[in-house]
């Protein structure tokens, strides 16, 4: 009996176009939109040589040489008017006027502009430092020390970050996976409706039959979990292979996370199904609302929010299933397999167990006062 029920539940789910849309196509469409919109969003983080113009370069050739030696500027020599025009048109970040004083003119107080400032500062400061040193130790002039001293020694060590590892845009895609998984909750709610006489005519029919409610329930829940799991995997494949989103290499752990998410979301749906005393469309609406609010707090609309919640309201982060899924994927990507991943898995599993226990307890006790 179990297998026949499972088979038919599964068939019904497969043939249901509405479910296919919201569980598979909608996440794919949303992820594609993200991909298109965010493809270039980190371009600001790539340092490119700064475009500058120098006015009256002839006044201080040495300075111009120093600028060229830094290797980070694209320098052109211009008249003052030309330089101003170029600055207004944003063709250059700033222009440097060489005279008794060396000054720079820029559009705003940005990073590249600050780099220009630092370069100018350094030029002044270095000669002051030399002067101060010579004043304190006049003999130093006779040695090679001053000419050999490397003022540009770099004390900054090799950075331990890999650029690929810092692509924060992936969080958006992980929230889409969380959304796809949590939409499985609506299937769970419908499973409950199918066995409750006061929820649907089909439920009444089922209640009257000799089939055990527990078997029916278990069979349809298994079918829901299976379809949700398959849909989530399809979405993951699309993200991985079509959109080339980075997940790290730990595919097995990703699959495990997807599976547990599917189980948790279906049981979340069944729990809502038994506890909320309204008709099915309301319950599904509630599941979707919880999904979207959960995804919002796990960064779907603005990544900062995930971090904010993590720091300021960590409890919320731990009880939000969308965040657990997103964070699980994030931890696999950024940290590899470790404590953080296992904590997310453990909480999701605990949730699944709790939700299922609540569901079973409530169903068993149910008698109808009125249909």
């Amino acid at each position, binding site marked *: 009996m179990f297998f026949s029920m499972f088979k038919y539940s599964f068939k019904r789910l497969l043939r249901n176009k509405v479910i296919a849309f919201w569980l598979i196509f909608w996440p794919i469409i949303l992820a594609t*939109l993200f991909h298109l919109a965010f493809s*270039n969003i980190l371009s600001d983080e790539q340092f490119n040589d700064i475009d500058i113009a120098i006015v009256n370069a002839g006044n201080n050739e040495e300075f111009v040489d120093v600028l060229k030696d830094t290797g980070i500027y694209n320098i052109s020599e211009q008249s003052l008017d030309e330089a101003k025009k170029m600055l207004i048109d944003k063709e250059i970040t700033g222009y440097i006027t060489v005279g008794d004083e*060396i000054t720079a003119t820029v559009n705003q107080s940005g990073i590249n502009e600050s*780099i220009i400032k630092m370069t100018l500062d350094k030029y002044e400061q270095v000669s002051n430092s030399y002067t*101060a040193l010579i004043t304190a130790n006049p003999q130093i002039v006779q040695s090679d020390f001053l000419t050999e001293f490397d003022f540009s020694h770099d004390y900054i060590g090799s*950075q331990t970050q890999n650029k690929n590892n810092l692509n924060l845009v992936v969080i958006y895609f992980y929230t889409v996976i969380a959304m796809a998984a949590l939409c499985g909750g609506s299937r769970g709610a419908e499973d409950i409706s199918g066995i409750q006489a006061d929820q649907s005519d089909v439920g009444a029919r089922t209640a009257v039959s000799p089939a055990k409610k527990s078997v029916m329930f278990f069979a349809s829940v298994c079918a829901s979990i299976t379809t949700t799991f398959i849909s989530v995997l399809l979405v993951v494949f699309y993200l991985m292979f079509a959109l080339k989103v980075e997940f790290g290499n730990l595919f097995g752990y990703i699959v495990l996370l997807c599976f547990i998410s599917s189980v948790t979301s279906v049981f979340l749906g069944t729990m809502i199904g038994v506890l909320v005393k309204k008709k099915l469309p309301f319950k599904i609406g509630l599941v979707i609302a919880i999904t979207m609010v959960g995804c919002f707090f796990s960064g779907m609309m603005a990544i900062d929010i995930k971090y904010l919640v993590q720091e300021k309201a960590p409890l919320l982060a731990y009880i939000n299933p969308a965040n657990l899924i997103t964070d699980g994927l994030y931890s696999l990507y950024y940290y590899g397999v470790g404590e953080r991943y296992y904590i997310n898995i453990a909480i999701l599993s605990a949730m699944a167990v709790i939700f299922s226990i609540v569901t079973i307890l409530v169903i068993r006790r149910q008698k109808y006062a009125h249909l």
Partner: protein
Amino acid sequence: MHTFKLYFKIISRGLIWSFLMYFGIFSLFAVVFNNTGDREKSYEFSLYKCDTVVINYDDSKFSDSFEEYITDQSSVKNDIKSEEEIKDALFFRQIQMAVIIPENFSEDFLNGKNPELKVEAIPDSPSTHLMSLMMNSYLNTYKLYYDGNSGFSEDEIISHVKADLSKESEMNILNDSSKGNLSGINFFFNFSAYVFLAMLILSISSIMAIFNELNLRRRCICSPTKEIRFSTEYFMGNLVISLAVWFLFSVYAFILYPEQMLSQGGLLYALNSLAFVMIALSLGFLLGNVCSPKIISPISTIISLGCAFLGGSFVPQELLGENVLKIARVIPSYWFVRANNTIAETGVFTSGALKEIFGYMGIQLCFAAAFLAAALVIIKRKRTASV
């Protein structure tokens, strides 16, 4: 005008709550994602301060002074301590760099062993360059005094370094009055593209779905009232709703940004959003006549989000990829956002600037006309087909 009156009866009794709910949610979004307030553009240059974390394992006067210098030149976050916290903060761009001064750094540094500072940062980024420049400046200056047998004591070196590094060059900000300063309100209006599309398409098509219900439609068709009359009155109802939404949103903008809205720029923003509302109206009208009630919700979600993402409502147009911008030209909200951005950047509205802005509005009206024409064609076809 009975159908027109009926339209509003149906809204006021059936749809008013969902209407208000959408407006409420979207308004909330607009506020949440708002760049709070438009800072007066400062004409005084100030150094960009990167968000950093400094962890100092070396216990010495030298490293303390170095740490102090870094703190002075950047914005240090003191509540991030553990390795995991640092990594997370860096990932989420809450910090741009974490500097870890290793144990014995000062010893190795002063003994010429050229130790390296450990740094967690975004590789090869402008902020990393800036921080590197700044830190190396301090270290190299200190080294100069130390290795150069200046005879200074540790405290004297520290104060000399401080003095040297406090000499700053003159930085000027170009005072270009032809530049505008409306970035906060600009975001608000760019975001409104999403709000208008989502609200109006959903509302209008929900109402049209009620009128297009098969049996009611049959009853109406069998009456001597011409179908064109029905379509006209539906459209007028839609128009009034759209104008109401536009007006509400404009008032909301005025409440949030009173000074900016009263300027020439503000007026242009309002006009531009009116042009866009016409697009949302005619698109909603088209979809209401084409789609069945069941698919209207997913379709409207896809269209409104798609247009918002690709048109530059969520991610600024400057940050969208080249290919995306090419596709985006066929998306009506692209032109709306482009017009808004132009308004934001223009300080003085010359006739040339106005021509450009009105040109973008014209393109939007063309879109609106196209959608409306398509809707009319479909309505006409429905008239002659079987009901």
